[in-house]
């Protein structure tokens, strides 16, 4: 898609301004999906700027390409709310490095997309802006969730408003909605993309992610945002050669693991069949496919709940409403009573309950029992992956989600913790280990909902992972233009 648009922009058969206008119009027409929460007021000017560049024969890698950004990346001059009342009036005075790099590459930021409050969720349902709808089989009475927490970005891409969008992935927040929406969702290795300006959920697992309709488009965005950043000490200089993506990829040289622990309770038959179908497809293409074991997989979600709550409790301490953010109009007696009121009035129940549990786990008397213990289990989970790579496996192929996108009513019948526990089962372990992972759509279920597959690669072997995903995507013919009602 991006290369096609780039060609037309270069040929001047399409102007950057027209492309932007069309994007905005689409966005308006599809506003009932609730994918976008703010429009970039400066977008038209940016598109015009790109148009001038193109007229002068200058075409930066993403010149004039409209891209959407999840509303937890700071954007200078555009509200950045994390879908929380707490930050409803927050307009950052700086750009996240990811946004800065996209703009430097010529991309036009269309707007900001919906998410669960502070990215704590897997449905894009717990948002002050209301839930985002899945484009597939959504009608006014009954509709499916987009998945989350990057549901807004995924719906923006799946509905064809823009070709690519930024999301963030801590436990599956890019891959889960990408899978439900039938698009490609990529979570790079931890440490490859800068988190500077990404409002954190769990710092040690958060990764900026990219969603697009094709692997190639993901790659086009990835290659302009990759690289070390002095503002993020955990963002490393790995000198990955992005040009390698274009080079030949041979499935014959690959050893692929099918981890048996992912065949878990709650895995739907259709998803399982799809998984088998992909394994066979690779096998038939002379790639080596073998069953492997990641024995600590089932502990991942419980461990994640502890670590997530702890970092949330800590990260959310800054939201007091003193320097910025929501300020209650009620009278207050002291500093403590003021911040208590601000926090109670402006933070959602999910956020507050995680803060409470996190503070409990971090109490001096509980620290070893919960926090340190969880770090140990995290190490075991991470070692599971490292052992696989040491045994010369190149990739793991797993389901992305256990089922297709549930209906909002089904989803809402469960509490947030149960929702996340089932939704994140297959995606979360890769975050524990920092491995790169990508989800690509494979087919439609009987009820015409997309089913996807996840590929996990070795840390910092992102380019080869994308090559493999690209190869697989070409092998399967998934309709990439969706019927939109």
């Amino acid at each position, binding site marked *: 898609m991006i290369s096609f648009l780039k060609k037309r922009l270069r040929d001047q058969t399409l102007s950057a301004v027209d492309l932007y206008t069309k994007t905005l119009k689409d966005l308006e027409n599809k506003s009932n999906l609730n994918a976008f929460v703010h429009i970039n007021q400066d977008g038209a000017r940016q598109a015009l700027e790109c148009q001038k560049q193109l007229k002068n024969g200058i075409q930066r890698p993403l010149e004039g390409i409209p891209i959407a950004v999840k509303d937890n*990346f*700071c954007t200078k001059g555009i509200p*950045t709310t*994390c879908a929380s009342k707490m*930050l409803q009036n*927050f307009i*950052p*005075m*700086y750009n*996240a490095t990811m946004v800065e790099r996209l703009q430097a590459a010529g991309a036009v930021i269309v707007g900001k997309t919906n998410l669960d409050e502070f990215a704590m969720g897997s449905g894009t349902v717990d948002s002050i802006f209301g839930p985002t709808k899945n484009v597939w089989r959504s009608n006014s009475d009954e509709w499916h969730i987009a998945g989350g927490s990057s549901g807004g970005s995924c719906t923006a891409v799946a509905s064809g408003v823009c070709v690519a969008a930024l999301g963030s992935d801590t436990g599956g927040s890019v891959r889960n909605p990408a899978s439900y929406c039938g698009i490609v969702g990529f979570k790079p290795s931890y440490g490859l993309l800068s*988190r*500077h*300006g*990404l*409002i*954190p959920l*769990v*710092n*040690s697992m958060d990764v900026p992610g990219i969603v697009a309709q094709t692997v190639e488009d993901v790659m086009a965005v990835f290659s302009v945002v990759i690289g070390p950043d*002095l*503002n*993020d*000490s*955990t963002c490393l200089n790995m000198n990955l050669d992005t040009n390698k993506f274009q080079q030949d990829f041979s499935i014959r040289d690959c050893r692929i693991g099918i981890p048996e622990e992912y065949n878990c309770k709650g895995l739907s038959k259709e998803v399982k069949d799809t998984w088998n179908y992909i394994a066979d497809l690779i096998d038939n293409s002379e790639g080596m496919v073998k069953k492997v074991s990641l024995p600590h997989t089932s502990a991942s979600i419980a461990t994640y709940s502890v670590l997530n709550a*702890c*970092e949330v*409790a*800590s990260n*959310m*301490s*800054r939201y*007091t409403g*003193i*320097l*910025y953010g929501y300020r209650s109009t009620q009278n207050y007696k002291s*500093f*403590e009573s003021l*911040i208590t009121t601000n926090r109670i009035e402006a933070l959602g129940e999910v956020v507050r309950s995680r803060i409470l549990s996190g*503070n409990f786990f*971090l*109490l*001096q008397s509980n*620290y070893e029992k919960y*926090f340190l213990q969880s770090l140990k289990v995290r190490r075991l989970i991470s070692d599971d992956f490292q052992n696989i790579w040491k045994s010369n496996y190149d990739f793991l192929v797993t389901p992305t989600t256990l089922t297709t996108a549930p209906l909002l009513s089904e989803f809402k019948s469960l509490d947030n913790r149960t929702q996340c526990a089932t939704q994140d089962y297959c995606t979360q372990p890769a975050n524990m280990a920092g491995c790169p992972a990508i989800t690509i759509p494979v087919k439609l279920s009987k009820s015409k909902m997309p089913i996807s597959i996840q590929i996990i690669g070795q840390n910092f072997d992102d380019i080869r992972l994308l090559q493999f995903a690209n190869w697989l995507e070409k092998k399967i013919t998934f309709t990439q233009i969706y019927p939109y009602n």
Partner: protein
Amino acid sequence: MYIKKYITKQIFNRIRPQRNKSTKNIDEHKWKSVVGLEVHAQISSESKLFSSAGCKFEASVNSQVSLFDAAIPGTLPRLNEKCVEAAILTALVLKCNLNKISLFDRKHYFYADMPAGYQITQQFRPIAENGELMFHVIDQNVKKDPYIKTSFIKQIQLEQDSGRTVHDESSQTSLIDLNRAGIGLMELVFEPDLCNGLEASSLIKELLLIFESIKTCSGRMEEGALRVDANVSITNRDELGTRTEIKNLGSVKAVQLAVDYEIFRQKNIIKNGKKIVNETRGWDSVSNKTISMRDKEVLQDYRFMPEPNLLPLNLNAFDINKLQLIIPELPFVIRKNIMKKYDLNIRKTCILMNEPVLLSMFFDIMNHDKSRNPSRVWNILTIDLLTELHKRCIESSQCKIPSNFIGEVVDLLDNNTLNLAYAKKVISVLFDETNKSPSQIVTENNWEQIYEEEKIDHLCKEVMIECPKAVKDYRRGKVQALKFLIGQLAKKTNNKVNIAYASNKFEELLKNE
């Protein structure tokens, strides 16, 4: 280690016979006081510990603040290597073991001037551990012998300073200044091995001298660049008693007074048969008392957690040998050299060392003319000049009198042009008429000393004629009468006479009759 300590404690408790608890007349000598210091030293650096904002002291409010310092969402810490180097240098000088790998942690508490809701510190694995600081303890009372004391250092950790809250009473509002928020601090945790205020203040004085020479902290306590917390307890057994913590002592004097007051207060509590409460106290320099800080009474659980946005600090990335080489001569060595070279005792040397400006004047004066008498130079500087500075409420660092002028005063004393009484006057004039040299002042005012033998002989004889009673008294054996005669002579000559000469001359004349 903690468990071991605990077990030992239990055993001690068991074998020690229980004291009669009703005893109210406690024996003062059996109770010893235990003092341990924690020093927060601001690192002298261009920018903050984790951001590029500046650290200027008197910058206008909220002008030294980066997005990170204001805890704007999405910002991340970025370690300032200069601060690490300062901590390494300090740790080397204090003979600490450096941890090749150290870690940063978050310490959580809500405070208006700490916008992130946590402070980044080094709780579990600090940059350096197990050091020591040796210092001289010198009582003002000259009868008490000076001695050398060593305090051991548990750890040195890097951490962020907090901002400041200013309470505006008139409008009943609190205002926050984040200029200080995020400035790098070295927290030096000393073991509780001191026993009184003098030892505590002596430790701080020595530490200030060390910072003065290695320049990793300005040591300006009046600017809050170095703050001291003192943990104080008293005990009559081997284990430590319940301690109180005195927070934020902002001067050497406050350290000494607060610690001594707290020991006194605790002893009184025990005398009255009451128990010491573990609490945080502040120092009120107006009433000269420590006072309970009620808002901090609630036991805080800081919910420590590793800082996930910073990599472990690896000292292999720093050239420690190079830092080792830039360590200048340290106070202990300087002191030893002064004592040897100028034949000054430890008391005099320490007094001089604690006044860095006077010390450098001392060196100037002595280097300019090595034949000068160091004791005389010491006297002029640390007694006469310092007295005049105090009288005029001038910090010695603000003293503008050039050292060659002081040297000249010393020379005028040496060659008998001046006596001490007039030397003091000259020094006073030096402050007011900065363009005049001491010789000029002496000539203009006619302040030359009378020391020629003939003149003195003549003057003494005159006085003896004027005071026949005193002469008679002396000759009858009333020796004090000599003093009266000298006094009369001093009055007669406007104190310009050389008293030592005159005294000899009187004795000679009085015996001759």
